[in-house]
């Protein structure tokens, strides 16, 4: 097997994992702290791409698009939280699923109305075009390296935010004991809005940085959302660390599976069987992985404290 291709695909998988992490981090935070199942998180991914992409097109600078996307998504996320989701906290999970499902329909239709059905192509900024040589015969696109770097920085920032800062402390206090945090003078509703807004920014960032590769499309967040669900189920709901590890594992296994499973199957199966089973099996691999993990650990790899 070609080791250059192997390493390239590994990096692609890692990069997919980073995108998944940006999605899963917000989902798992919102779920862990507010106990809210939010399907509309996929819409934040999409809106981030369209809003940021439009700003980039108008200003002619992708970087400005990214920078301005952040406050925009924070506001949109907080607005969604304040108008709709806030009412849902005391409700059961079924209501969460239904209401946020309704939101998806709305956001998809609204996006179609504003940007039209074709989607939006966001060009790669010049300075991020091209590839760099990584030695031992491997060249890799600069832009994908940048995605990985940005994702790792965000992961680090999130860790610092939750573990070391005052707002992180409030988040953790709010998660473990709402009344207590409330009694300490924390504005819980505001805190939740901000947490939701941060989740929306992360999802929007993921959607925006992937668009130069895939273009922005209506409903683009939904497949990623389902993968992110797989990730947080594997990682354990509410755990940022679990989300990170599970994202990378899922991204790498999915990408590597799609590229190499048919080659791998050739070792056991006749050629035509391997060629037809390969794509089918590789599209199912991460779900099989999820089922296997759940079989042994029904609460995921890093179960939240007190969930037993």
């Amino acid at each position, binding site marked *: 097997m070609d080791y250059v291709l192997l390493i390239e695909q590994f990096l692609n998988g890692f990069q997919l994992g980073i995108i998944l992490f940006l999605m899963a981090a917000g989902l798992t935070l919102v779920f862990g702290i507010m106990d809210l199942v939010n399907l509309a998180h996929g819409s934040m991914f999409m809106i981030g791409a369209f809003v940021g992409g439009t700003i980039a097109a108008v200003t002619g600078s992708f970087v400005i698009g990214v920078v301005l996307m952040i406050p925009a998504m924070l506001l949109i996320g907080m607005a969604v939280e304040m108008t709709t989701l806030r009412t849902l906290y005391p409700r059961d999970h079924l209501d969460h699923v239904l209401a946020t499902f309704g939101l998806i329909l709305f956001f998809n239709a609204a996006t179609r109305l504003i940007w039209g059905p074709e989607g939006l192509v966001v060009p790669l900024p010049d300075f991020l075009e091209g590839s760099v040589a990584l030695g031992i015969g491997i060249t890799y696109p600069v832009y994908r390296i940048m995605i990985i770097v940005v994702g790792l920085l965000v992961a680090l920032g999130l860790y610092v935010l939750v573990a070391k800062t005052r707002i992180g402390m409030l988040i953790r206090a709010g998660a473990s004991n709402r009344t207590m945090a409330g009694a300490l003078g924390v504005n819980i509703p505001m805190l939740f809005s901000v947490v939701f807004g941060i989740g929306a920014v992360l999802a929007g960032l993921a959607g925006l940085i992937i668009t130069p590769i895939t273009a922005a499309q209506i409903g683009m967040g939904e497949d990623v959302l389902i993968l992110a*669900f797989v990730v947080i*189920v594997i990682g354990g709901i509410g755990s940022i660390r679990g989300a990170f590890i599970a994202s990378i594992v899922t991204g790498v296994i999915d990408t590597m599976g799609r590229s190499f499973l048919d080659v791998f199957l050739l070792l056991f199966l006749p050629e035509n069987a391997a060629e037809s089973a390969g794509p089918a099996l590789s599209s*199912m691999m991460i779900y099989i992985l999820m089922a296997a993990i759940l079989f042994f650990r029904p609460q995921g790899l890093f179960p939240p404290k007190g969930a037993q």
Partner: protein
Amino acid sequence: MKDVIDLKSPANILTIIVVGLCAVVPFLAPALGEPFYVIVFARIMVWAIAAVSLNLIMGYGGMISFGHAVYLGIGAYAIGILAFHGVTSAWIQWPVAIGACAVISLIFGAISLRTRGVYFIMITLALAQMLFFLSVSAERYGSDDGLNILARSDFGVSFFSLEDNMTMYYTIFAFLLASVFVSWKLVHSRFGVVMRAAKSNETRVQAVGVSTYRYRLTAFVIAGVMCGIAGLLQANLERFVSPDMMNWPRSGELIFMVVLGGMSTLFGPVTGAFVFLMLSEILSTWTIHWHIIFGPFLVLIVLFARGGIAGLLTPRASRE
């Protein structure tokens, strides 16, 4: 649980109207110059069967499956794939479709029922998407574009042919009534009592000596098979199957139909499917952006009309 049927309650009047319409539409619609409504009603009834099956586990058993539409897809693809390979006999097609749904719901149920709450929701969703992606990657069977079915299931007898649209329609109607009847029997049987009790208080059921897992799994499989029957009917009705039939928005819509009509009520899913699909039908003729109205409408239903239509139509005093 008392079943004193009050025929004059608004929810029941709506049920009677919907079921009555389903019964006479093949005669009524052409007479009114709207023959198009025959196929609309046939579709509604297929979805209603699927919704009834979901209500069985979700409404009565508390299992929120977010991947229930996958059994529609499995039932339909079983017909489509067999027909593609030239097997058109209903006596082979239907048992295969039902068997496939039973086996897959058994596997999916065995995995997902090990978990609870939101994990269950996400896992049923993910497992269903797995088969959705499998169907998308099946180039031989049309991938995204789906698969046309040239002939409907053949029962091999002259007096009963699904190729006759009237027969097709009333076959679906009969299965709809049968699905409600079967739910009614199940829910009130000893099995159904355990299922409802486990929804109400699972720890207590365990503490009187019943291990709930087997009962939940059995219910999950029964619902999967019932939904698979809806799928095989749909394949026959439309003469077409595609991955979209089991994509996750379909599962979400099924949940909505059940909730809209009123969870844990026998005919709720039927009226829910009717209202949901008629509303989609009407709104979508106004504008292609109809989801911009429909989405917020669904959100409002969740926020302000928890008991669905049945709840809205039931006077507050008699609610429990």
